[in-house]
């Protein structure tokens, strides 16, 4: 019996080590894995932006001047990426848009829905649809403001050390006047050091 115990334990150990493990990560406790841009930075940028927007009072002032209305805004196609990483910068803008809409401070024009909306309007204007119930053309709302920005970095890699400074600058400008109504930057610097052994 004793002779069998060791091989069985070994087999159990091997079985426990085999296979793939998946673990859910709490996004509120998400941390960066290295000096590169990470999902944790998304939350930091969104929080920083939202805090700055409420401190600035842009939306409150707009509501006061326009009888409680919300400003109509448009997202820039993407943040200008001046970093050395391929980042989906649209994600940053969309995360901010989601927070702004959900907090009820502004309305957004969908910049990516134009083609499909136009196609749908053309279709509904055809004889295939009941003209009385079809969506009307000429109801698109133009954006008054555009939310855009730039993400930049300065990196120094030397030996096992990787030092990365990141800066995200966002602004809202008025389409009619090109006046910048709000701007903010979120910046952070991280150093990541690899182990000497691999």
């Amino acid at each position, binding site marked *: 019996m004793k002779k069998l115990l060791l091989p069985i334990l070994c087999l159990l150990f091997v079985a426990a080590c085999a296979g793939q493990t998946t673990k859910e990560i709490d996004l509120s406790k998400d941390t960066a894995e290295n000096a590169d841009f990470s999902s944790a930075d998304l939350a930091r940028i969104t929080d920083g932006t939202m805090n700055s927007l409420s401190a600035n009072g842009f939306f409150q002032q707009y509501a006061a001047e326009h009888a409680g209305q919300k400003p109509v805004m448009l997202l820039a196609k*993407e943040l200008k*990426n001046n*970093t*050395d*990483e391929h980042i989906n910068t649209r994600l940053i803008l969309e995360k901010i848009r989601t927070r702004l809409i959900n907090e009820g401070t502004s309305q957004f024009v969908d910049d990516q829905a134009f083609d499909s909306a136009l196609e749908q309007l053309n279709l509904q204007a055809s004889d295939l649809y009941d003209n009385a119930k079809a969506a009307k053309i000429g109801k698109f709302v133009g954006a008054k403001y555009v939310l855009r920005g730039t993400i930049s970095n300065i990196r120094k890699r*030397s030996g*096992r050390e990787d030092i990365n400074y990141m800066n995200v600058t966002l602004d809202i400008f008025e389409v009619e006047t090109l006046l910048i109504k709000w701007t903010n930057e979120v910046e952070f610097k991280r150093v990541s050091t*690899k182990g*000497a*052994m691999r």
Partner: protein
Amino acid sequence: MRKACLATIVLLAVGCATYTSRMELSRDLYYDGRYGDALANLDKLVKDAAERDHYLLLLERGKVDLAAGAYDSAIVDLQKAERRFLEIEATVSVADLFKNMLVNPSMGEYQPEPHEKIMISSYLLLAYWLKGDREGAFVERNRLVERLKQYTGGLSDADRAALDVPFAHYLAAVLYEIEGREDDARIEYDALRRIEPDAVPATVDPKRGELIVFAEVGRAPVKVSTEIRGYLQKDGGNLVGFFNLPGSRGPQMFFLPGLGELELDKPGVLFTFAFPQCVRQRRILDRCTLVVDGVEAGELKPLDDLEGTAYAAYEKNLGATLIKAAFRTYIKTAAQTKLGKNDDAKGFAFDVLGKVLSAVDRADTRSWQTLPAEIRVFRMEWGPGERRVLVRYVDERGNVVGTSRAIAVSGERDRKTIVFLI
């Protein structure tokens, strides 16, 4: 029993093909312009490769993909390799260290030379640009500038002349120009001026419509495993080795301090070790001319002597290569002399061990072998419309020895058009 051991040793010797010999067919197919066949062969090599060579082979395949116009595949392979090389940069694997020292230096994971790392970013930039992803190309330009700073920033002027990559500076400068960042472009052109002044354009003008042609010429040097024979003798408390190195005048000498207790049964012993000899590849081209719609537009200027850079990097590493070879030689000699002095059975075992180590001793012949020997550049004013361009290769006697593939290039007003020809 003895016959079986000897047969095993022979098999080991035959079975351990060097990287250069494994790459030979793919390399020939690639330089013949048979990209499909080269890729089919490289797919097989990548599939069968040990982890230690996997990422180097991805570089080779990425380069062939780039030449074949398969930009997405090139990006995937080059990025995967780049990521891994950054991960292992400046780190040490104990297992690799032992295998390097005891078996042969090609047993560890491949770590590229700095100029090879810079070329990864350069080719990634080109792949993004040529597939029409401007933003992606600008990101790669930023990475390239960072790599240049990291790998060439601390070099002395003499080392910079030998080890810098002028092509990378030029490429970065052109992308800065295209983005309208004249000052940044000038910084890169200034860096280029220090190493290849004739290649610097006369003016920096982002608004000028231009055609910029980069053409790769010749084959990168390759390393081959050469058996070096030498003589080891005791000198007080040290061991001293003598050997002749190809290309060097007179015998070379090395000391193994503190290893004099090794009991040599003769005043000295003969030894052999595998040495990576860097071999320049034959080049018959003398000059290249750009032909636009059948009319010769001008001669391409030399921009980057990558063959010279690869050779300089090789010479810089020569000391470390020889120290490792000396250590392996000591281990083999110890196995065959001191340890082999035991009783008959043990003696035979250690003799076999020594012979096995000799049989598997191969020089590390790995390097990025689909790199060119040289890159040349041509720049001319270019307006809207489509024209066919090709590069004509001419030998020393003025005979046309070949042409690149002809490609249709369309220009836009006030825009720069980049063409990459192999």
